[in-house]
């Protein structure tokens, strides 16, 4: 069975797809890609549906050896990628032969990157999705050395495809928010304080980001009733320091939510790194919708720029030389 053998694992690599949104009423976290744009581009480069299952890593990628190849892959991230030690560009599909070693290094920008595989990662779906929620083990665990990532052998000899990486919009530490429905539980100056100051990311994972800045005080005696929460919610525990919820968030939460990041900017929220500063700006529902439509249009124009390439990469030439000799 064709697979990618994990030789070295990054700190937090998981299989992801669109997530399992529909099971939240049973307490099942949605999970799913943190940066849907990168996932869509990676999948498009290998000819997949845009939300096919792929590997998403955090901070540092993995070293994977092809077994039962060839296998077609594409890395969507700003990162050093190598095949058998030869550098290859990201945002480009590659056909890897049996035994070849793909090494994905530390991210140069952002928190997450995506490794897409033609045909999609063949992990068994759980509740309609292959996304891993590592905290509860739904869908699987973090990738570990020795794991075998099931994939499909690439039977089509289509040319490699690439996207000029300078076209890919980089993550920005500026995200737009809508006021949260529980803002009435806060002191009147809480929302202006959120908007007026940079927020330092103390630590984060796929569940959420802990932010540091001036306190966002709740009104005395404010006792929110636990309710359903959304990805991108800025919830404020009694400490007054907000937590921005990510795709591995809980389904229900008891902390008051001051604001919610708009759908179009969730990828920017997911990509901010520990130690960086985030800035929030306020928009209304119409602006949020227009931003999402604009993001969709941008994705379509990027997909249209993916084109076949016919150059020979350095890692392919030793093989060519052997074949010619």
């Amino acid at each position, binding site marked *: 069975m064709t697979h990618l053998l994990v030789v070295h694992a990054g700190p937090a690599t998981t299989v992801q797809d669109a997530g399992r*949104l529909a*099971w939240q*009423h049973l*307490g099942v976290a949605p999970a799913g890609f943190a940066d849907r744009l990168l996932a869509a581009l990676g999948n498009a480069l290998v000819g997949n549906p845009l939300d096919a299952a792929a590997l998403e890593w955090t901070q540092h990628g993995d070293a994977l050896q092809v077994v039962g190849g060839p296998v077609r892959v594409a890395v969507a991230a700003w990162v050093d990628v190598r095949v058998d030690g030869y550098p290859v560009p990201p945002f480009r599909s590659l056909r890897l032969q049996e035994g070849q070693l793909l090494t994905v290094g530390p991210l140069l920008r952002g928190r997450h990157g995506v490794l897409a595989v033609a045909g999609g990662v063949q992990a068994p779906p759980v509740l309609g999705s292959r996304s891993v929620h590592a905290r509860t083990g739904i869908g699987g665990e973090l990738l570990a050395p020795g794991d075998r990532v099931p994939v499909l052998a690439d039977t089509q000899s289509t040319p490699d495809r690439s996207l000029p990486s300078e076209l890919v919009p980089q993550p920005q530490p500026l995200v737009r928010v809508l006021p949260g*429905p529980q803002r009435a539980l806060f002191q009147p100056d809480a929302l202006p304080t959120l908007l007026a100051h940079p927020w330092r990311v103390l630590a984060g994972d796929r569940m959420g980001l802990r932010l540091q800045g001036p306190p966002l005080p709740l009104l005395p005696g404010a006792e929110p*009733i*636990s309710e359903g929460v959304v990805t991108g*919610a800025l919830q404020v525990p009694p400490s007054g320091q907000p937590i921005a919820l990510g795709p591995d968030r*809980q389904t229900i939460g008891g902390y008051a939510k001051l604001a*919610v990041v708009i759908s179009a900017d969730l990828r920017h929220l997911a990509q901010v790194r520990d130690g960086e500063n985030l800035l929030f700006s306020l928009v209304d529902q119409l602006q949020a919708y227009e931003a999402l439509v604009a993001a969709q249009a941008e994705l379509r124009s990027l997909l249209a720029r993916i084109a076949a390439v016919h150059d020979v990469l350095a890692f392919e030439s030793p093989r060519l030389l052997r074949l010619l000799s």
Partner: protein
Amino acid sequence: MKVEAVGDAALRVTVAETPGAEASARVRALDAALRAAALPGVRAIVPAYTTLLVHFDPLAAGLVLLSDAIAAVAPQTVAPPQRRWHIAATYDGEDLDAVAAQLGLSPAAVVAQHSAAQYAVACLGFAPGFAYLTGLPTALHVPRRASPRPQIPAGSLIVGGQQTAVMPLPLPSGWHILGRTHLALFDAARAEPSLLLPGDWVRFVPTAAALLATAAVRCEALP
């Protein structure tokens, strides 16, 4: 009933001001109606104590139109609770003595009160199959631990604040451990993955450790 946007991809429907049996019944009635209505663009419906959160795809459903459609859905008449779970519990948890001391009760009195009460599943959250149980006797209300434990065993019977629960998976928790159960609260391979569902009644039956696995759980169908 009040419908408000939560960000640009969810609507919160509030059906009651305060949690309780009345609020839970209204939440369940609207939950059933919204699922039956299958409104286009809806991705998930998450019932809680006094609210339901309707997640939707903003490119497939307009916020205003969906909001109006939700407001127009008539809550379904739902049957009163029809199941009562009798869950075997061994009250030998590491926090039992400390909780008893904090409440000014003997450990035996804590066990007696906890196992005499009948609980209702208000909603599921925190983890797959984690049921928030209401109905903890006031005498057993206890603040959560100052520092949460990084992991407690699956099956732990816990109390925190005004609630009690059984932990479905090994997870971090700031609640106090009173004892343990032997339950598969969540199994993704089952047709109904969660054992407990909103509206169910739950009782805990003090059980010797040696009998815990065999006694485990019994479901009583209510007339």
